[in-house]
C-alpha cells in the first residue's frame, strides 16, 4: 500500500502551477481531481491521449460493414424481391439504416471504452475514505502526489504544496 499527499487548491491556476513545479522537482504526480474538466491538465500530468475517438470509429465502421453485409445477403441471396425492376442491391436505399445503426454502435463502443478506460463502475475507492475528498466534485481542485518515504523529502514536498497555495493537505493511503 502506497501513500499519497492530497493537497487542495481553491482555484485551477495554483493547481496548474503546482503540477509544473512538481514535474520540475520530479515529485511523483499521481492524479488531480477537479470540479470541472480543465483543458490541458491531463497532458500536464503526463497522461496519454485517451484514444476513445479511434475506438468509436472502429466500432462504427465495423458495424457499418456488418450491417450492409446483412442487407446485401438478405436482399440478394436469402430473400430476393423484385421491386419495380430495381436492382436487388439498391445501395442508395440500403445506406440509410446502415448509417443510423453505425452511429449508434460508435456511441455504444465509445461508452464502453469510456467505462473501461476510466475504471468505472467502481463504487468504492480508497480516496473516498478521505472525508475532504468530497470537495473535488464540488468546489476544490485537488492534487495527489506520491508521498516521499524519506521524512525530509516529505517535509519539503509538503512545504512546496503549502507554498503553491494549498488550502489543506492530507496524507491518504492508496
Amino acid at each position, binding site marked *: 500500500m502506497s501513500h499519497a499527499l492530497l493537497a487542495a487548491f481553491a*482555484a*485551477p491556476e495554483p493547481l496548474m502551477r503546482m503540477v509544473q513545479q512538481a514535474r520540475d522537482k520530479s515529485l511523483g504526480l499521481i*492524479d*488531480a*481531481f*477537479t*470540479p*470541472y*474538466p*480543465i483543458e490541458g*491538465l*491531463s497532458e500536464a*500530468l503526463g*497522461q496519454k*491521449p*485517451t484514444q*476513445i*475517438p479511434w475506438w*468509436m470509429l472502429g466500432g462504427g465502421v465495423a458495424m457499418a460493414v456488418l450491417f450492409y453485409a*446483412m*442487407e446485401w445477403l*438478405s*436482399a440478394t441471396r*436469402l*430473400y430476393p*424481391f423484385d*421491386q419495380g425492376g*430495381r436492382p436487388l442491391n*439498391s445501395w442508395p*436505399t*440500403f445506406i*440509410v*439504416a446502415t*448509417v*443510423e*445503426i453505425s*452511429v*449508434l454502435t*460508435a*456511441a*455504444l463502443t*465509445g*461508452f464502453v471504452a*469510456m467505462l473501461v*478506460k*476510466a*475504471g*468505472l*463502475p*467502481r*463504487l*468504492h*475507492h480508497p*480516496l*473516498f475514505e478521505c472525508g475532504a475528498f*468530497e470537495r*473535488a*466534485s*464540488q*468546489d476544490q481542485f485537488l492534487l495527489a502526489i506520491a508521498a516521499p518515504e524519506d521524512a525530509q523529502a516529505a517535509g519539503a514536498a509538503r512545504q512546496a504544496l503549502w507554498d503553491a497555495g494549498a488550502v489543506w493537505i492530507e496524507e491518504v493511503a492508496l
Partner: protein
Amino acid sequence: MSAAPNPEAGGWIAPDIDSCEAVNRLIAAPLLDRQGWGRQQWRGWWMLMGIAIPLTGVFFLGVYMILTKGIGLLGNNTTIVWGFPIANYVWWIGIGNAGTLISALLLLTRQTWRAAINSFAEAMTLFSVAIAGIFPIIHLGRPMFFYWLAPYPNPMTLWPQWRSALVWDFWAIASYLIFSIVFWYTGLIPDLATLRDRATKPFTRKLYGVFALGFRNSARQWAIHQSFYKTMACLAVPLVCSVHSIVGMDFAASVMPGWQESIFPPYFVVGAMFSGFAMVVILAALIRKALHFQSLITDRHFDVIGKIIVASACIMGVSYATEWFTAWYSGERAQHTYLAYVFTGTYAPFYAIMLFGNVIAPQVLWFKRARASLPTMVMVAVLVLIGMWFERILIIWNTLGHDYLPALWRAFWPTIWDYLVLVGSLGVFLLAFLLFVRLLPSVSMFEMRELALRERRP
C-alpha cells in the same frame, strides 16, 4: 425581470453566482435541501402532477383501446390512412430532435450559454422521442407485428424491405433514442457524483452514488469523459439531421402531390429545431420560475433563443414559399389542384393558423423588447408549437385527402380517441419532465461551475 447578467463581462450568469459553491447550492437545493425546499416549494409541482398523472392515464387508456379494439376507433379512413398518429409522431420527434441538436451544436461551437439549457433540453429529447416512438406502432392495422421491421431469423424466412421508408424510420428512431440516452447520461455522470457527495441521507447518497458509477473527478477520468462526450457531440449533429431527414423522406420518397419534394428533408430538420427551441423556451421559463434559477437562465438566454426562433421562422417561410413555387412550376395538374386545395379547401383555416404561428407571429421577436419580455416569448413559443402541429397534420390531411384520384378524395374527422391520445401524450411528457426536475439536476452543475469561475475572474 430581475437578474441581469453583467453586460461588460459578456456574462451568462447573474453576478450573485460568484463561486462553484454558489452554483452547487442553487442547483442542488431543490433535490437535496429538505429545509429550504419544503412542501410549500413543491406545491406547484404537485399541482402539475395532478394534471399530468390523469392525462398519462388517459394516454395509456387510449393506447390500450386502440391496440385491443383496432384503429377503427381513430378518424383514420381508407384515404387518410395516417391521420393523427403520424402527425403526432412527426411533431413529437421534431421536438425531440432539438434537444440533442441544441446541446451538441452549441458544444461544438463553444457557446458557453449552452450550460444553462443543455441538461433539460436533452431530457426533453428523451421523453419526446420515447413518446414519438409509440405513435407509428398504434397507427398500424396489425400492431402486434411491428417487430417484423427488425431482421431476425424466422421460420417464414422473411426479411425486412430495406428500401422502405418505414424500415428506415425504425432504425432511425431506435438509434436516436438509445444514442440520446447515452449522451444525456454521460453528461449527467459528473453531476451525479456531485449529488452523491452533497447528499446527507444515506439512501439518497447511495442512489446517486450507484448512478455516478464511482466517478472521482480525476484528471484522467475527465479527459476520457470529455473526449467521449465531444466525439458524441460530433456524431450527434449529423445523426439528428439524418433522423429528421428520414422522417421527411417518409413523405418525400412517395409520389404524392405535396410530398414528393426534394426540399422535405432539410425543411423538416429546420422545423424540428424550430419546434424544439419553442419547447425549450416554455420549459426554461417554467424551470427558471419554479426552481428560482433566474441567475442561471438569464434574460440574455431568452434573447439569443428568441433570435434563433425568428431566424428559423424566416427559413420556414422560405420553405413554404419554395413548396408553393415548385408546385406551381411543376406544371402538373395534380400539384396545381393540390395547391389550390391547400389555400381554399376544407382545411384552409388551419393552414392560415399554421402560417400565422410558424411565420408571422415569431416576427415580433425582431424587436428587442419582445425578446426581453418572458410572456411574449412564451406566447410565441406556444403559437409555434401549435403552428408546427398544424403543419404536420396538414401535410397528411391535404395530400392524402387530395391526391391524383378524385374518386378517393375524402376529409378526415378526428374522433374523441384522436384527441385523447394527443392530449394524453402531453401528459406523459409533463409527467416525465416533472420527475426529471425532481430527481436530477435540471442545469448541468459542472459546466455552470466552470462558467461561474471563468466569468468571475478578471
